[in-house]
């Protein structure tokens, strides 16, 4: 079961991973975007991770809402509204939830991803972060259906996200700055799918 503590650990873990991978994320973005994904995400996650130490939170939803607002306010670019909306919508799914099992976490992730879709209007195969999230959610649900606990479901989701991320390499971008490249966007892994996979992998380490 995941409680408030687990969620703050998730954000702290993701902040530290983003910091380690910031240059790599920026390199991916340099190939098909504008070379700022790593530095933007790092700036936002540093602020988001500071929240847990700076104020007392009484509930998961209040904490995730603050994380979302913090990302909206500090990341910029498209990633700010997208990741911000993800956490804000996810917070909405955790009202009155103090201990989250597989069902609650699954519902929270799905609500968050629906927020990403509403904001970014992407579809499967557009070479965006959704190409990591979509298979991850499916794998999560499938694992839960097969009797997995939260840890197992998150591991399955992380593996599926990584496969989805790798598959973006062969896609032509149809959303965001990379879409300007057309055919030339092929051959590069999508930075947003990469940072999203890191977030899901981080959840598999921290939430279960």
């Amino acid at each position, binding site marked *: 079961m995941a409680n408030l503590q687990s969620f703050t650990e998730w954000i702290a873990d993701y902040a530290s991973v983003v910091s380690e991978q910031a240059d790599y994320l920026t390199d991916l973005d340099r190939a098909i975007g504008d*070379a700022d994904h790593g530095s933007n995400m790092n700036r936002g996650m540093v602020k988001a991770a500071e929240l847990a130490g700076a104020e007392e939170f009484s509930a998961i939803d209040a904490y995730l809402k603050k994380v979302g607002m913090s990302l909206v306010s500090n990341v910029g670019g498209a990633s*700010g*509204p997208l990741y911000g909306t993800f956490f804000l919508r996810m917070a909405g799914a955790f009202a009155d939830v103090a201990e989250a099992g597989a069902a609650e976490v699954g519902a929270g992730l799905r609500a968050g991803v629906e927020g990403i879709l509403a904001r970014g209007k992407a579809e499967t195969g557009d070479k965006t972060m959704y190409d990591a999230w979509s298979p991850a959610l499916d794998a999560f649900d499938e694992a839960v259906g097969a009797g997995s606990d939260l840890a197992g479901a998150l591991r399955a989701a992380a593996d599926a996200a990584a496969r989805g991320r790798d598959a973006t390499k062969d896609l032509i971008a149809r959303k965001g700055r990379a879409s300007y490249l057309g055919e030339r966007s092929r051959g590069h892994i999508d930075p947003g799918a990469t940072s999203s996979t890191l977030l899901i992998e981080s959840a598999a380490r921290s939430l279960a």
Partner: protein
Amino acid sequence: MKKLINDPADVVVEALRGMAAAHPDRLRVDLENRVVYRRDPIRAGKVGLVSGGGSGHEPMHGGLVGLGMLDAACAGEVFTSPVPDQMMAATKQVDGGAGVLHIVKNYTGDVMNFEMAAELAAAEAGTEVQSVVVDDDVAVQDSLYTAGRRGVGTTVLLEKIVGAAAEEGRSLADCAALATQVAESGRSMGMALTSCTVPAAGKPTFDLAEDEMEVGIGIHGEPGRKRMPMAPAKEVAEMLLEPVLADLDFTGDTGAIVMMNGMGGTPLLELYLMYHEVAQILEKSGVTVARNLVGNYITSLEMAGCSVTLLRADDDLVGLWDAPVNTPGLRWGV
């Protein structure tokens, strides 16, 4: 990376400090929110004009704040959209009771952040906000399969023209309609001779060989339509104008407002040389130059290269173009 900076992380704020120090007669800078305002508070009943975007395109947008142009400009990190907090602060500040127009360049991040800000400002302060999205870059295929055309040079012309309209007291609805007209009547195309280096990244965004150029470039070092061998200015001018003229008819009686814009690293000497080439082609194509602007107005850090923008004009647009303007980047009639 060789740049006149102290720390890559401080570039935007330190540049804003410089703007505040250089133009205290015209500007006021909110360093915390990274918003450049006109020095004097907005006149009651005047529509407020807010724009903004990533830094690195100076003088746009902060240098285009002042009489007859913008009321506020939100500065994002280099090549990164500002965040909704900044736009909300600016929107509330320049609401003189007549509402606020957001001028947004069509980039995924800018559009999403301005959308969030407009939703929040309406919900929190009751400010009436309308938005115009500029998407004038003919280098990008406008289809369901892309994020749409990018917003480039027409933005500068739009800020001048709609700024004059707001100054003479036109309503929010009229300013928004005029902004839409300008956005729909402008087309641009750019090219690069070199890449640019984002301070935080520390290395060039793309590689371009000594004998190559990139045609159809954006303003963030994002690659363009095609990479090709260097060519004489005459041929480059043709390459830039051909898709612009093919996309929209500029042969009307009033003609076009023409901007020959530098990307930041190209000397005025070459921009004037290019303007001559452009003017010759336009004459042959039956396009009258109603007004022109030559210089660095929407740049891409130190990138060498240029872009050309044509705006189909009418008498109203030309009248508003000629109206007084007093900003650090554009000044006449005052």
